[in-house]
């Protein structure tokens, strides 16, 4: 009762002016923060819905990377003998796959998110950034489940547990930022050009081979090529993650620095492009 009375006081009434905007707009993170509960619920919906009406449920979050790892092991380790930096193939692949899957799922889901959420966009107002953001963040739940398996594998292969593990969240965050940056570009472009939906699977596939998942980044020794290689922000994420898990590697500082810079450029440019396109989403989608 008292709150209602308070809210009816003119001073408490928020006012806005709606007018056409032109050119680039500011990010307006404060508004995004005000809608944090919506972001939470959208993320939660993505997580809840993903394995509904499946027999194995959340086990898929573990099975998918695990089975991929098994395939990689037979094809690239046993058959092709691609060097794995001296680590056992399974854990080498699995530790590369976890951050990769986080990135890949994030990019793919975010890329389609606006088109899938067309019904929301044309009926309700909220910061549109919430939709791709929720798609990317929802991948962390799958990641966390698979990470438990990774810990089990570390024990199995008797890898030393070091303080480096504490750096894992940092690399997860880096992976999320990269995925969001790419996801924002794709999702906003997808609203106008549905070609994006066709291109994304190929792009993701090519990107996977451009990242050190089935091979070691140490195969690339030429300094120039290596610094070009590091422009792929996923390289830094995966190398950093492996460094934290496997132990014994030297810290891939240069690659990580390069990747951090690129991923922030991607995020910033993606967000700016998104904000610019945002105002016409409801009219075109």
């Amino acid at each position, binding site marked *: 009762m008292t709150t209602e009375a308070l*809210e*009816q006081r*003119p001073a408490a*009434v*928020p*006012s*806005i*002016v*709606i*007018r*056409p*905007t032109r050119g680039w707009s500011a990010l307006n993170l404060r508004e995004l923060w005000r809608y944090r*509960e*919506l972001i*939470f*619920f*959208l993320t*939660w*919906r993505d997580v*809840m*819905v993903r394995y*509904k*009406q499946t027999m194995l449920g959340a086990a898929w979050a573990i099975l998918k990377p695990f089975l991929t790892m098994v395939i990689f092991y037979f094809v690239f380790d046993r058959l092709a003998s691609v060097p794995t930096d001296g680590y056992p193939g399974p854990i080498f692949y699995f530790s590369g796959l976890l951050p990769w899957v986080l990135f890949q799922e994030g990019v793919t889901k975010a890329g389609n998110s606006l088109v899938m959420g067309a*019904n*929301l*966009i*044309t*009926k*309700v*107002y*909220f910061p549109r950034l919430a939709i791709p953001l929720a798609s990317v963040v929802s991948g962390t739940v799958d990641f966390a489940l698979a990470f438990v398996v990774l810990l089990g594998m570390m024990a199995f292969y008797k890898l030393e547990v070091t303080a480096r593990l504490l750096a894992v969240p940092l690399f997860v965050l880096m992976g999320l930022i990269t995925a969001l940056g790419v996801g924002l570009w794709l999702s906003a472009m997808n*609203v*106008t*050009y*549905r*070609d994006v939906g066709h291109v994304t699977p190929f792009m993701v596939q090519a990107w996977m081979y451009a990242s050190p998942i089935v091979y070691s980044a140490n195969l690339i020794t030429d300094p120039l090529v290596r610094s070009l290689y590091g422009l792929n922000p996923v390289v830094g994420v995966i190398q950093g993650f492996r460094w934290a898990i496997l132990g014994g590697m030297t810290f891939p500082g240069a690659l990580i620095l390069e990747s951090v810079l690129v991923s922030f450029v991607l995020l910033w440019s993606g967000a700016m492009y998104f904000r610019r396109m945002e*105002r*016409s989403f*409801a*009219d*075109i*989608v």
Partner: protein
Amino acid sequence: MGELAIRVQDLGKQYRLGAVTGGYRTLRDTLAEGAGQLVGRVPRPSRETIWALRHISFEVERGQVLGVIGRNGAGKSTLLKILSRITEPTEGEAEIHGRVGSLLEVGTGFHPELTGRENIYLNGAILGMKRTEIARKFDEIVEFAEVAQFIETPVKRYSSGMYLRLAFAVAAHLEPEILVVDEVLAVGDAEFQRKCLGKMSDVAQQGRTVLFVSHNMSAVLRLTQETLVLDRGGLVLRAPTPQAVDYYMTSGLAQTGERLWAEDDVPAGSGPFQPLALRVRDERGRIAERVACTEPFSIEFEYALSQEVTGLRTGLYLSTSRGEPVLTSFDTDDPRAFEQRLARPEGRYISRCRIPAHLLNEGLFVLGVNASSYRIRSYFTDEQALSFSVDGTGAPGSHWPEARGGPVRPALEWVIEEVQR
């Protein structure tokens, strides 16, 4: 003069025609265009644009309930979308004082796989409610929707009635200072519609500002004191609601006893069904805007089917100019007719019905048409396709000049008996 809740000044919204008809650009289009321009041969194709809304200015005071009426395509939805910030205006500006809750469709964001409980939280958050607020109103919402036993069931197993009730219940418990509502009452059964209307008038009485768009004139009359009439993107009248409704029904819709549909007037979803014309013909077969109460007349609906349609029924909704329904009738209401016409092959048809003499009272009536295959698909609906008037000259009792209430005026048989004591 109270405080202002909404001030709209010279608002306009321009759409590119391509965008309106739903076509999205492919990368190829853009590349081809760009390449053409680089070479300098192909001139930039002039894009056709339309103003869905233009030069709109009005003010709404806090606590006022304002109706917005107009034909399809008049710009009502565009106006609401701009005010609820879903789309941006092309010119002009709008000042909004207070939080806006928009109800352009019930059930926005409902996910079929989630349970009733989960959807209440999700939908509430989408509509802008805080989690604590939803938790506080949860029981009330469930009770209003009458779905208590099914609250842990995925909504995909709900009947469509339950689904709508739940969706409306969440929306109805939204408590913003300004509520923007579009056509949400056009769903559900009559009983539920009454309940929704009741809830809406509660909202109005709590001193909140409401902008209410509807085709349902009786709802507009009941809920609002003042109404805007939009036509072709312009604001043509702002008046007390009864006046605005009369104006809209007489001038906005006045046709000449005949309504024709061109191919591109018809929404894309109508598929094989293409409406062509709706006509009112007097006893001698002439197309008439005015028919006599004392003579029979006929209503004919002409349409084409581009392929065979099974179970088709086309029919009429007759209502008063105030939006109160008078009757509904379908061309296959007779079971034998339905059996005979179970599948209608491709071709052109006229469904004609005869309205007997001495049925309707004098006044203005509105005809709606509908074509559907019952429970399978609805092809086409236009609830206000045509209006016509009935002349009461010679009707029973017309030797007394007083107006008679009610939409019907049958010539009833009266017997006057003198009772012996």
